């Protein structure tokens, strides 16, 4: 069937792949245990003005197949209006929304990671998207920083 949106990206890909080596991931470690860090994350997301739309387990069945932890979640979040507005203007962004943060246990501590929205600039070269990516990046930093500095 018809494959659209293709040509434009080829050029961008050629121009930018060399830069993709850099860190494109925002990660923090919380010294809190998984359940505490999970609470801190959800409250930080709300404090930043977003709604947690879903907490998804991806690990159902993992423990059955020898995986030793089930403390692994994907937390989806967004702002309804922003999502509506952006996906109307930029439907190509749809598969990446709502935004997500993964959270998983590493022994007594907890790791959180999210893609860096700024890394999307290269493939969605649009001014108003650029502004959104920059804001998301700041928001994700703030959210994760709040989780990191949450007291035990």
């Amino acid at each position, binding site marked *: 069937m018809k494959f659209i949106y293709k040509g434009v*990206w080829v050029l961008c*890909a050629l121009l930018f792949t060399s830069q993709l080596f850099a860190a494109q*991931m925002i990660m923090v*470690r919380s010294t809190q245990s998984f359940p505490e860090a999970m609470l801190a994350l959800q409250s930080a997301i709300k404090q930043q003005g977003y709604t947690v739309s879903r907490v998804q387990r*991806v690990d159902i069945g993992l423990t059955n197949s020898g995986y030793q932890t089930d403390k692994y979640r994907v937390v989806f979040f967004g702002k309804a209006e922003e999502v509506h507005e952006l996906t109307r203007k930029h439907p*190509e962004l749809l598969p990446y929304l709502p935004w997500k943060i993964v959270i998983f246990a590493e022994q007594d501590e907890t790791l959180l990671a999210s893609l860096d929205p700024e890394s999307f600039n290269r493939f969605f070269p649009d001014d108003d998207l650029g502004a959104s990516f920059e804001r998301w990046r700041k928001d994700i930093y703030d959210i994760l920083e709040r989780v990191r500095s949450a007291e035990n």
Partner: protein
Amino acid sequence: MKPGDRMRLITLLALTMLTAPAQAEFNGEQLYARNCAACHGMDGKGGVGVPLALDDFLASVPDSYLFKTIRNGRPGRVMPAFTNLDDEQIRAIVGHIRSWGPPQPSLSGSPIKGNAGHGKLLFDKHCAACHGANGEGSPGTGVTFSRPRDLPILAPALNNPGFLKAAPDQMIKQTLMNGRKGTPMVSFLEMGLSESDINDIVSYVRSFENENGAATSIQLEAETPVLVYESSYDFATTVENVKKAAIGKNFRIIREQYLDQGMVEPGTENTGQKMVYFCNFQLINEALAIDPRVGLFMPCRVTVVEQDGVIKVMSINPKYLSPLFNNSYLNRACNEMYDIYEAILEEATL
């Protein structure tokens, strides 16, 4: 000035004087906490990254090795290049890492001239099982906590341009002579190799430099961040088609929901944007063993959208996301997922 105020001022001055010299150290610690602790652990015990707080490690590497590793990273091996830090900041981080163990060794800078041919034979016999036939390193990330696997600590890629650029011959030699207590890397002197054997292996490892861009540092190239197909079916039929196609590729449908569900009042969702989530535990397991962060790809999802009377099905492009992880072992999984997404989108719209 009242005596109380004077006292306060003196205290303040004293405090300023006390804290000033400690500033640099504090900086290194803070920079480490922000940039490195997520992977290497607050105290350098390892995590997604390998352990750094190891006496044998610190005793065998010069500060220049730490500096260059931070600056250049290890392309394709998770360890990022910290191009955003200036030299002084990197030196502060190196200082902080040094505070965990012995000072840097004084290693001679002269290259080691061994017999690389003989070194290759020894490498195949003694090293390849862990470090890979071509020194490409073992799959996975630093230290395993929840993911059972053969090696408790990942064997670094020795053919990696980042490693080879940072590591002087004498450092590689030291590592082979002494091993690293607390890791699977043993002393090969104790394993019965001679110093001349070790020189030969070092020369062979150095020869990886001629490979010109090791396979482990290759990044996938994606033409587009999204895969999009147009459907000639109506919305509901397209959703059903997506589900059928995913099941046909051995996935389980785990959820179907509107994109803004959970963000808006129930009943007011935009019914023209629906997400179908599906997964395959074996794939998840395999991917998590390579990189615990791959949950960012999960669960698998196809979005069906109706806009201006046109129905489209879309997904992320795994090849586009792969380089963001800087983990070349993910490339195969991402190529595979790319093919699967393409097949599902195509079948659903056929």
